[in-house]
């Protein structure tokens, strides 16, 4: 079909010229589209995501309103606390179900989210380091268990978790430093998590032998 206005022959069977939008005379020969029709399918996926987010915002807005109306009876901003927990849960779900990252990146992200939750609870409940002091070493130990589980399930590629273990050791060292400087107080838990993470890392390196050392070489190549 020819667009007389633009002077081009249009091959893709569209009823109007894509440039000037003049109607095109339809020929007798059948023309097949060069590209599949996917625009509507693409838009439907985006609507579902928007709906979930809107639901979360709506729930929190209702909670804030109730809190404001009952402020005289109960001056504590519990809606902010619940809102923070709600956001944490939403982000956990988002992290678990997001497609674009692997499970190791999700583990890092989950650790970060738990850390933020501990700091938030400390602040909101006025506990001044109690949640962090107990929560951090328990968090480290829990994630060591998660890493061990992942290594057993994915035993063919167990070396992929070595960098994660390395970060656990660093993380434990930081908590030890915080304990030494008096910021954190739970000596037993912190020492246990440090020893566990170091033993786990050393065990993997020494028993993993060449495979693990090659993985470390790749990860740290400069």
């Amino acid at each position: 079909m020819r667009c007389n206005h633009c002077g081009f022959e249009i091959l893709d069977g569209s009823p109007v010229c894509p440039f000037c939008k003049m109607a095109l005379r339809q020929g007798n020969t059948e023309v097949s589209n060069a590209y599949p029709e996917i625009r509507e399918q693409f838009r439907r996926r985006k609507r579902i995501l928007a709906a979930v987010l809107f639901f979360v915002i709506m729930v929190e807005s209702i909670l804030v309103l109730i809190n404001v109306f009952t402020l005289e009876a109960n001056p504590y901003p519990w809606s902010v606390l619940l809102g923070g927990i709600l956001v944490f849960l939403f982000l956990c779900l988002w992290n678990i179900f997001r497609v674009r990252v692997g499970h190791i990146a999700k583990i890092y992200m989950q650790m970060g989210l738990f850390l933020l939750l501990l700091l938030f609870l400390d602040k909101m409940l006025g506990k001044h380091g109690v949640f962090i002091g107990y929560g951090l070493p328990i968090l480290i130990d829990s994630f060591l268990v998660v890493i061990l589980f992942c290594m057993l399930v994915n035993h063919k590629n167990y070396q992929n978790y070595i960098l994660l273990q390395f970060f656990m050791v660093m993380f434990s060292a930081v908590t030890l430093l915080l304990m030494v400087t008096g910021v954190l107080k739970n000596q037993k838990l912190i020492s246990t998590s440090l020893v566990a993470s170091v033993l786990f890392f050393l065990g993997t390196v020494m028993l993993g032998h060449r495979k693990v050392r090659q993985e470390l070489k790749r990860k740290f190549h400069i």
Partner: protein
Amino acid sequence: MRERKSRTEIGWEKLDNTANLFPVIATERMTNVYRIAFTLTEKIIPEKLEEALHNILPWFDYMNVRMRTGMFWYYFERNTNGAPVVREENTFPCSYIESRDNKYYLFRVTYYECRINLEVFHVLADGMGGINFLRELTYEYLRLVNPSIQDENEGFLSEQTSLNAEDGYLKNYRHPEKKSYRKVNAVHVTGEKLMRGELGVIHGYLSVQSLKEHCKKFNVSINEYLTAAFVYAIYVEALHGMAGKKPIVVCVPVNLRKLFGSVTARNFFVMVSAAYLPEKDNEDFETILEKVAESLREQLTKEALEKLFSYNVSNQKNKALRIVPLFLKKLAIKFVYRMSAKATTTTITNLGNIEIEDAYRPYIKRIQALLSASTGQNMKATVCSYGDELVVSFSSILKDNSVQRRFFRKIVEDGISVQIETNGLWSE
């Protein structure tokens, strides 16, 4: 196809110099994925295409990889997950390659009607590397579908195919003079955008012979002519033919292989910029053509090109920068990229004439290529030719297509007929 001997150890290799940029800046909006497509004379048989991919992939080490994250750099590791699944095209062209959905591969092979699409994340290879792989894939597919094809190589890889995966930049690097990245802000083609994730495509088909004859009259190459036509279209439609303080800067990737005697299939190109500063109103096309051609020719010497990529390599070799952790490097690279993106209007890439062996020519009807949009470059053009047909493909995230229209109209006004095909986004 001869089978490659299986290897027990999982090899690894570093990214080439240019490739270090792409994983840092790639997002859903700026995918850094390009597409090369071969349209055949018959409908694609998916099972045969998948078999062809399964047969040839083990030979192509530079494609048969997954990307991993190190402390200081990204790196590649051989992918042991078997070939990626071949699917019917069901997304917009050059969409983000989610490696986790793709057996950790950084390329995808799709088909639609008679067309085989290869979409490659630029971290793996440039256009020549992509063509290298798709050509061999198509040959293998055609051999499976048409056993009667008389192939000189008796079903093994073609002589045109390179399996070389060296880092051409590191190999040809020389100690650079001091330089910095471009700082002058360029004109940007802006306007209402299509929905996020959508990409509008316009292909223009013209005769190579007609175009060559026309370019001879002006004593310019096809590349210079098309670049000037693109600049002209932006000048007329985006600047309304008026003078301005900002230049129109078109990035033109230059293939370095012939200049440096390399046959690498990885990235080995450098960007030169054709700059045109509109100093007068209603400048004519011939003046723009002269200025653009001059701007390009000045930069297309071996020494000038060497300087360009040597600066990038020197940054990679700098000991102080090498030990910076990757997450900090990423921030710095993103920052530098965003600054230099302001200094660019658009890109036009020319893959040149794509050679196909005589035995397979009767089965391949057309070859096309596309680039994804990027920061500040809402529209890009790709040029390639096969036989006497030259295809100029525009990819754009803008609703308005007046620049593309002006471009093709200029060519028609110059006496060259153009056939147009789109992906339907502007026909609704």
